[in-house]
């Protein structure tokens, strides 16, 4: 139930922030045109909440009610990280959608976020297959 509440709050945050308006996202990425810097405040706001949260979690080792802190096993920078992020950026720039806003936008009146999310799911499964093939090779 906590997960449901977090998803709900996350969606409302994205909506308020303007992240679910592809034209606004494109205007943010359009640094050589009429740049709209307001989405910097979205990242800045979210990061400013999370920085002290990580600090507290690192010091205490546990969250509320003995919840364990997540463990991060990957620390090195590799080709998959950089190439994957580069590919993601191209898709983001083409559509103005990153994963969260695309999922939230499925609730809207237009059909196209459904198409986006369907191909995003296909891309997700394709990445799984790609990882399996490259791990075996």
């Amino acid at each position, binding site marked *: 139930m906590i997960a449901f509440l977090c998803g709900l709050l996350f969606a409302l945050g994205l909506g308020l922030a303007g992240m679910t308006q592809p034209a606004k996202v494109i205007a943010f990425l359009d640094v050589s*045109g009429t740049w709209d810097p307001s989405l910097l405040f979205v990242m800045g706001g979210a990061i400013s909440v999370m920085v002290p949260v990580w600090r507290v979690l690192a010091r205490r080792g546990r969250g509320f009610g003995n919840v364990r802190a997540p463990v991060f096993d990957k620390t090195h920078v590799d080709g998959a990280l950089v190439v994957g992020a580069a590919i993601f950026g191209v898709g983001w720039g083409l559509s103005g959608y990153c994963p969260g806003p695309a999922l939230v936008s499925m609730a809207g009146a237009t059909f196209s976020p459904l198409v986006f999310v369907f191909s995003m799911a296909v891309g997700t499964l394709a990445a799984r297959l*790609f990882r399996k093939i490259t791990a075996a090779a």
Partner: protein
Amino acid sequence: MILSLAGGLLIGAAAALLLLAGGRVAGISGILDGALGRPSWRWWFLAGLLCGGLILALLYPAALGPPVASIAPLAAAGFLVGFGTRLSGGCTSGHGVCGVSRFSTRSLIATGTFLITGMLTVFVVERLG
């Protein structure tokens, strides 16, 4: 600006709650990846995301802006976003918010990279297209 900041704070609060009360990182691409399988807490998170979308559609419909691309480029972009985020292990939320805020080198590099290629793509489409 104020709305963007308020939205950002709310996104941060949601990510903080999931981390402190659930021990999980609010990375949407990873949650979607994990949800394409057996039932788990991720299904609840996605249900919350969709309910949030419905609330926006009812109370603040302008928040769900119209698409900027037609169906074929949108489908291609969706594939690139799904494939790219899972290859790099995160998106705007997982790397951009949760990873950058703990000063993870991987996340800082991933975020810098997708911002640059996103800006380059918009430049090519808007200026040269």
